[in-house]
């Protein structure tokens, strides 16, 4: 049970609305123009995602901001960056010249805020367009190998909805992934909702 190309295209457009709002909020916070794009939305297994994240790089440690959303469908939304990129992101947002060496308590909290802005904007965009209601939670930050972050619960064959998110601030480019972990019932309910939405457009 997965979403077809048409349904994924519709989701890409919906996600881009929320991402646009997040870009405005992040620009205000950074005092610089932050551009965000979602070039690709796919459904794949956790294992497949893990392979994709680790394929080009020796360091498989990532920084993840997690939030749970519950309602008609339940999902854990996770924003993930390679650790090095997350350091660059914080540095850019703070506008500091001094390169960061590691993610301290303060940097992690900044990442939680950045992740919270993105996740809330994207989910509320989806909720508005698809007319769904969710209960949200506060974000928390996790550091570790991809496997630990992704495979903590459930099965490696579980499907996830994965959005590639490209950040551009000034000349710097950073790539992150926003992932929605969904159980079987939630995938079905998402598919049904998107279908309904597509029908309502015609």
């Amino acid at each position, binding site marked *: 049970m997965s979403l077809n190309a048409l349904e994924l295209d519709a989701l890409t457009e919906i996600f881009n609305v929320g991402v646009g709002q997040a870009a405005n*909020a992040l620009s*205000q*916070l950074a005092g610089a123009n932050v551009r965000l794009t979602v070039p690709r939305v796919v459904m794949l297994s956790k294992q497949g995602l893990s392979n994709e994240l680790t394929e080009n790089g020796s360091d498989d440690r990532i920084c993840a901001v997690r939030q749970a*959303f519950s*309602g008609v469908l339940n999902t854990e939304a996770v924003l993930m960056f390679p650790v090095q990129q997350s350091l660059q992101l*914080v540095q850019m*947002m*703070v506008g500091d010249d001094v390169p960061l*060496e590691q993610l*301290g*308590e*303060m*940097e992690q*909290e*900044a990442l*939680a*805020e*950045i992740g*919270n*802005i993105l996740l*809330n*904007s994207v*989910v*509320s965009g989806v*909720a508005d367009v698809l007319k769904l*209601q*969710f*209960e*949200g*939670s*506060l*974000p928390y930050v996790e550091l570790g190998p991809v496997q630990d972050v992704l495979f903590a619960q459930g099965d490696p064959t579980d499907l996830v909805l994965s959005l590639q998110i490209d950040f551009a601030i000034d000349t710097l480019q950073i790539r992150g992934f926003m992932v929605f972990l969904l159980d079987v019932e939630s995938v079905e309910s998402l598919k049904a909702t998107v279908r309904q939405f597509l029908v309502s457009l015609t």
Partner: protein
Amino acid sequence: MSVSGQSGQSDEASNCPPWAHWLLDHLQLGLLVLDAQCQVVFVNDWLLVHAGLTRDAVLSRHLLEVFPQLKNTSFERALKQAVASGYPTLLSQTLNPAPFPLFLSTRQRGQDKVLRQSIRIVPAGFKASGLMDQRYIFIQINDVTQSVIRERLLKAQSGRLKGLSEIDVLTGLGNRRRLDAVLPQAIRTAHKSAQPLSLIMFDIDYFKQFNDIYGHLAGDEGLRQVAQALNEVFRRPQDLVARFGGEEMVAVLPETDGQAALALAQQALQRVREKCIDHRGSKIATVLTLSAGVALCDPASALTTIDLLKAADQALYLAKSLGRNQVCS
């Protein structure tokens, strides 16, 4: 949340256990509850004390009227978004150091330092607001000033330790670790800025004999004297002089072309000769002398760290085979 700080709302207050106000007022963090119009319906003692306000000045007023400095900030944006979406949100100290004008309580207020704040805005979700008459929002403000100070101290300390770990104890020059950290970065910068980068490798002539004749303590002093001479010649802040091996030292010179590097190397040799350190064991002079090899990292070529060190080493070998006490490139 069915707690209210206002009197005369006994219908709400009746749902509230007798210890609720006592608890909320003694929490060591700031708490505010707003109604759906962002009017303050509850504020705890901690917040009043640190804001220097009375309860009457806060209750039943719009939050942005009570704290006008919040207008047009990320806090206001986050609050609006939380009201609209019903999703909790977080404002970090790193990106928003001190949105609320909160200070140490008057008793401790020596320096009038504003408190660093970590803030959570939690609106009632759709389920909870369905149980209430509207969407209430609570705001939690944690004082993280001590954490900020602690992190700053730790960072300063780790910076100092890092500096120490990259110094050669005997000569005070950079050590091999420092060279390994600086050189790749310098090469990258040279390529990026299209500027030349030179590297000079120095070796003390007949140093083994010097140690044999005068002893190792004198040898140590000789190394220190040479290090001092090099520091006197390579004085720009971007220059790095590091001890490479036993009696070998390296100078990394950004924005310096081959000609300039040759001239500087000659100066360094001259400076060491002028120190007139007796060396009976030398076959080419009566005093301690150096040989040097110069290598240039042309921005057009794609030299690596190893290529550059190798080139300098080969030039140094040439200087030695041509009779020492000279510079080759």
